[in-house]
């Protein structure tokens, strides 16, 4: 499947047929999830209506991590096989990844206000997500400051891989630091033993977020390839050469 789609023109054909289908599935799943999240599930005992923020927050954080994992896989492909499609994929994964990370931060902060009484808390998870946000920005900056596409792709893939190894280390350090400085642990809702009426919308939302992410990536790659094709078509040589032996 992957090797079949590795050809850019074949990918374009596939994407044109498949992406509307994926788009509709995403939309339907999202509507269903929203129905459960907004109407069917009850407000929580201690958090009230604010618990619904969780249905946007947890899936966003999950997608931010999912995106980084996908980004690493694409980067490994790009680095080892120098495949242009892997470059496109990495680039198209990172942008939604950054958006999801930002969404996770934003909803976390909005949720934090009613839950903890403050917009921001230097707690382990939020700090880690903030650092992930900076890693995404750093990664995307490589793409924007280096004009040669192949070079940018290769350097970006190196950063993504180094980042991937570092993320668990950063997470570990931040958690450890956090337990030292904030002994009063903040109650987290993501713990096991959630009632079914909360778990169902949460899982549905996560599924629709992941589908939405997939749709964004498929479209992103498609757009990137068309852009590349346009550029290649435009590219006429600056000079012609003449070799003369004497």
């Amino acid at each position, binding site marked *: 499947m992957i090797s079949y789609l590795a050809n850019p023109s074949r990918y374009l054909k596939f994407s044109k047929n498949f992406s509307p289908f994926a788009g509709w599935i995403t939309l339907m799943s999202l509507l269903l999830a929203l129905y459960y999240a907004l109407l069917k599930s009850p407000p929580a005992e201690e958090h009230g209506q604010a618990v619904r923020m969780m249905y946007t927050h947890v899936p966003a954080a999950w997608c931010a991590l999912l995106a980084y994992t996908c980004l690493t896989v694409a980067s490994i492909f790009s680095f080892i096989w120098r495949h242009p499609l892997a470059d496109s994929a990495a680039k198209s994964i990172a942008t939604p990844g950054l958006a999801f990370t930002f969404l996770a931060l934003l909803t976390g902060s909005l949720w934090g206000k009613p839950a903890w009484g403050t917009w921001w808390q230097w707690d382990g998870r939020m700090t880690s997500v903030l650092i992930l946000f900076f890693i995404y920005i750093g990664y995307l900056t490589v793409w924007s*400051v280096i004009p040669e596409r192949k070079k940018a792709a290769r*350097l970006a893939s190196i950063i993504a891989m*180094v980042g991937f190894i570092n993320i668990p280390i950063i997470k570990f350090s931040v958690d450890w630091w956090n337990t030292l400085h904030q002994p009063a642990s903040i109650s987290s809702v993501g713990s096991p033993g959630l009632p079914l009426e909360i778990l169902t919308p949460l899982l549905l939302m996560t599924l629709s977020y992941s589908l939405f992410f997939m749709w964004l990536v498929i479209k992103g790659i498609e757009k990137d390839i068309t852009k590349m094709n346009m550029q290649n078509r435009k590219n006429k040589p600056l000079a012609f050469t003449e070799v003369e032996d004497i």
Partner: protein
Amino acid sequence: MILNIIKRDIIIASRSGSSALNGLIFFCLFIALASISLGGTNEVLKPLSPALIWLAIVFSTMLSYQNIFQEDYKDGNLSQLRLGGVSALNICIAKSFSFSIQSIFPLILSIPIVAVFLDMPLSEIKTIIVTLLIATPGLTVYGVFSSAIAAKIRGGTFFIVLITSPFLIPLLIFGLESMNSASDVDIFNSELRVLIGLSLIASAIGLPASAAALKTNLE
């Protein structure tokens, strides 16, 4: 080969004198501004002084990361080294050593003087120097890495700060925590051991990654 490159870098740096001096001046200015803005009383400054010194050193090394490769890239020396058969990894190893010697060691050596302004006790000065020396490989290698990536970028300092900061956070956390839990009897506490581990991991990941990035930029 590696030794020749280090020797040459050190000779050039000692003749120009600017890189070490810039870092040092930045270090002192940072401490002065921080002390002034925090009110300047010993009660406030004393508990914060290890964190201030660490931050000052991390920032002033970050500002000199740019110089690791940019000049050698621009004037063509890196290409010539490649034509001379020096591998990218060897170039990165050599540059790591010359950067530590040129830019980080002068800062660490000046800590006792800066410490006077913050009224730090001798035992604390001792531990901060030990922790910084142990963190030096980590600080250096991520600098070499970011500089290898940014070799071609003009005015890449912001970019370098952006990509290195996340990677330096673990070093900062464990460096400072190991200072907090340091006592006169046991300088090698568990945090310090983690810091050693972090520096080793940084070198193991960072050097090959820097070599790959440098190679990409030299093609």
